[in-house]
């Protein structure tokens, strides 16, 4: 079992009258000796969801089948698994018997054969696929994970159906989403991934699917702790402005709060392997007087139900401006990175709706922020959508022609952040 640590970075000194307290929390799970190959104590369950709608025909389905076969190969002996083929309904194509089956050489071979027999036909109903996975995984103890591959829009059900399916799946399994080609909708898959604590990414070229699927399954198999929650206490009269995961990517946890008592709430962060994530917490409190010291937040890490480490977010009011104006590097860095993600998404949205001025301003700001933070990956993606004239001031011009795949790649990866050097 990995060892968890929680570190807190902030400037606790506030000027008189200030009410917003900011902190960056770094949670690190360090692998224990010999942990590498060990599965989670409660076991792991994996469901692979592959889109077999009519549009997947040809090269896309061929590559998707290959990727699925490779993914099945990565499922560890002893893990439970199933494969769902999705069109306007969901079909469990393996195992034939109800429920999941245990992975071994025989079952992996049989599953592979079932995948090879798939053909493309029918529509797309992502909510129905998730519903099917929820039925398979409900009540299964341990680390439950799904990977969802699609190439299209969720056309054959209502948006409300998808919403319902996401909330039913919340807490049952985590889901990483992959869009192949350029006919799917980033916002739709992002909704699934955010709701189910997973990632979303584009696989513009189906040839890249196998490597990507393998990586996703290996990461899922590497998880050793099924459930880690951030439990946040804050004083009477305070308000949580936000709690966001800010590294490795931005994801707003604020609305996921589950109340423990009137002053305390839990925020689920899903399963953990040996890894490190950063969170940005902002709390609004009643301002104190000069010389007052307040505990504005107490963050306790709850690992599989057990408290494992805590961080104190403090507020000390001072009339010493040298102290209160000091900028905390971590907080400033992630404030910028979150603004970067917002600027990209708003800029692309404006560009789609033909609002050139807003698009230019937002994407220009994004270029400036990416340059300032040394986020070269994002800067390179931006340069495919705008002509950068001056990264320092954010002066850009929208490109007349942009490959759809480039735009979607920028959108899906806008939430990926770069960590600050310590």
């Amino acid at each position, binding site marked *: 079992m990995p060892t968890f640590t929680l570190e807190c970075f902030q400037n606790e000194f506030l000027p008189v009258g200030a009410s917003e307290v900011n902190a960056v929390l770094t949670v690190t799970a360090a692998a224990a000796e010999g942990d590498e190959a060990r599965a989670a104590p409660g076991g792991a369950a994996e469901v692979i969801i592959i889109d077999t709608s009519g549009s997947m025909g040809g090269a896309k389905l061929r590559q998707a089948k290959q990727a699925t076969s490779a993914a099945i190969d990565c499922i560890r002996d002893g893990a439970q698994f199933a494969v769902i083929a999705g069109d306007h309904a969901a079909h469990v194509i393996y195992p034939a018997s109800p429920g999941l089956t245990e992975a071994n050489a025989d079952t992996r071979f049989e599953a592979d054969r079932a995948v090879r027999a798939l053909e493309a036909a029918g529509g797309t109903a992502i909510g129905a696929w998730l519903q099917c996975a929820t039925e398979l995984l409900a009540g299964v103890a341990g680390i439950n994970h799904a990977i969802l591959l699609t190439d299209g829009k969720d056309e054959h059900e209502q948006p409300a159906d998808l919403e319902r399916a996401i909330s039913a799946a919340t807490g049952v399994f985590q889901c990483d989403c992959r869009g192949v080609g350029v006919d799917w909708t980033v916002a739709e898959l992002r909704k699934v991934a955010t709701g189910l604590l997973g990632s979303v990414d584009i696989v513009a070229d189906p040839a890249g699917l196998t490597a990507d699927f393998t990586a996703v399954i290996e990461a899922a198999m590497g998880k050793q702790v099924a459930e880690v929650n951030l439990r946040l206490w804050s004083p009477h009269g305070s308000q949580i402005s936000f709690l966001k995961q800010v590294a490795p990517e931005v994801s707003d946890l604020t609305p996921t709060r589950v109340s423990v008592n009137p002053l305390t709430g839990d925020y689920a962060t899903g399963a953990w392997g040996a890894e490190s994530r950063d969170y940005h917490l902002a709390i609004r409190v009643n301002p*104190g007087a000069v*010389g007052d010291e307040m*505990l504005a937040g107490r963050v306790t890490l709850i690992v599989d139900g057990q408290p494992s480490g805590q961080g104190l977010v403090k507020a000390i009011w001072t*009339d010493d401006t*040298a102290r209160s104006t000091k900028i905390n590097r971590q907080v400033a860095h992630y404030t910028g990175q979150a603004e970067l993600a917002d600027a990209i998404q708003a800029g692309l949205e404006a560009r789609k709706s033909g609002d050139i001025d807003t698009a230019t301003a937002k994407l220009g700001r994004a270029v400036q922020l990416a340059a300032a933070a040394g986020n070269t990956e994002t800067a390179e993606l931006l340069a495919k959508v705008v002509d950068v004239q001056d990264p320092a001031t954010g002066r850009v011009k929208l490109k007349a022609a942009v490959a759809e795949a480039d735009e979607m790649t920028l959108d899906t990866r806008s939430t990926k952040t770069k960590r600050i050097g310590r």
Partner: protein
Amino acid sequence: MILTSCPECGASVREGELFCEACGHRLASPLMQSDPLTATDPVAAPPGDGGSQACARCGAPAEEITEDQYCGRCGMRQPRHSDHRESDLGALAAAATDRGLRHHRNEDTYEIACTDDRIVAVLCDGVSSSATPELASAAAAAAALQALSPALEGPCPDHDTARALLNDAIADAQRAVAGLGQGDGPQTPATTVVAAIVAEGVIALANVGDSRAYWLAEDPSEISRPLTVDDSCAQDAIVAGVEPEQAYAAQDAHTLTRWLGADAGEIAPTISVLENPPPGTVLLCSDGLWNHFPEADQLLDLLAGDGPERPIAAARRMVAAAVSAGGEDNITVIVIPAPLRPHPSPEPQEFTHADLHP
């Protein structure tokens, strides 16, 4: 000034209360007491930091106070023992320290020890802009006291012995603070120090930084004056010919030119010795007092004749005066009448915030 009602909520407050019982408001002038010695009967077993008390701010019940001393309801840090501390050595000496009104914790530390014919005392003021100043002052004061303790044994220290002991004490204090390393904050932990040995016919003093010693003469016709010279930019300016008023108005007036800490370099303390002075009082104090009352005559007024008879009353009056004047910084004073008034069996009594607010 004696408070009878809380300026925040209007509830009546007893003399000597540090905090309003009703709303937890910190009372600006808690130390003026008609009879301080009876008001501070030490409690049998001092409670732990905060102890089993309701929240000093919002009144939440004691069980809401967390182990790390925050209120589980309003979040406020509960008063620390170090927020206010006093030592009453009867007629021999007294010391008092208080957080003041503008700083969130007390970063000053004092140490005092005595026999019935001599006293050693140390006062340190942690540098606020450094990391963990409260640890720096505590480490320095403890190390210096340890080094001075031989002065309490054997024959009374003479001029040369006192000088040598003070030299060692400052060196040990410097080592102790330097041992705290660079710290994890922006600046290396640092502190000032002023230390004294008061014995038969000898008053010896050493200082680094801007914590001071004053001589307050008993006979009004004698001169009262500072016994130490600050290591500060203001002092440098005064030496260079700038008028004191102008020197203390400068932006960097309080910037120290010497301090104890890992980054302090070579420390050679300024040591001075008074031999057989006329009757008077040695006052050690941090800048939390002298910022408000820089002149020896002002301090003499605050002593109000209590020096020789009741040092604790004088110490409390000085702290209370600094708090009333705005309490801009932590305030610490040590009052030692000289020549020493032999005491039958000096039993030092220690009081902390919790004792004063049972």
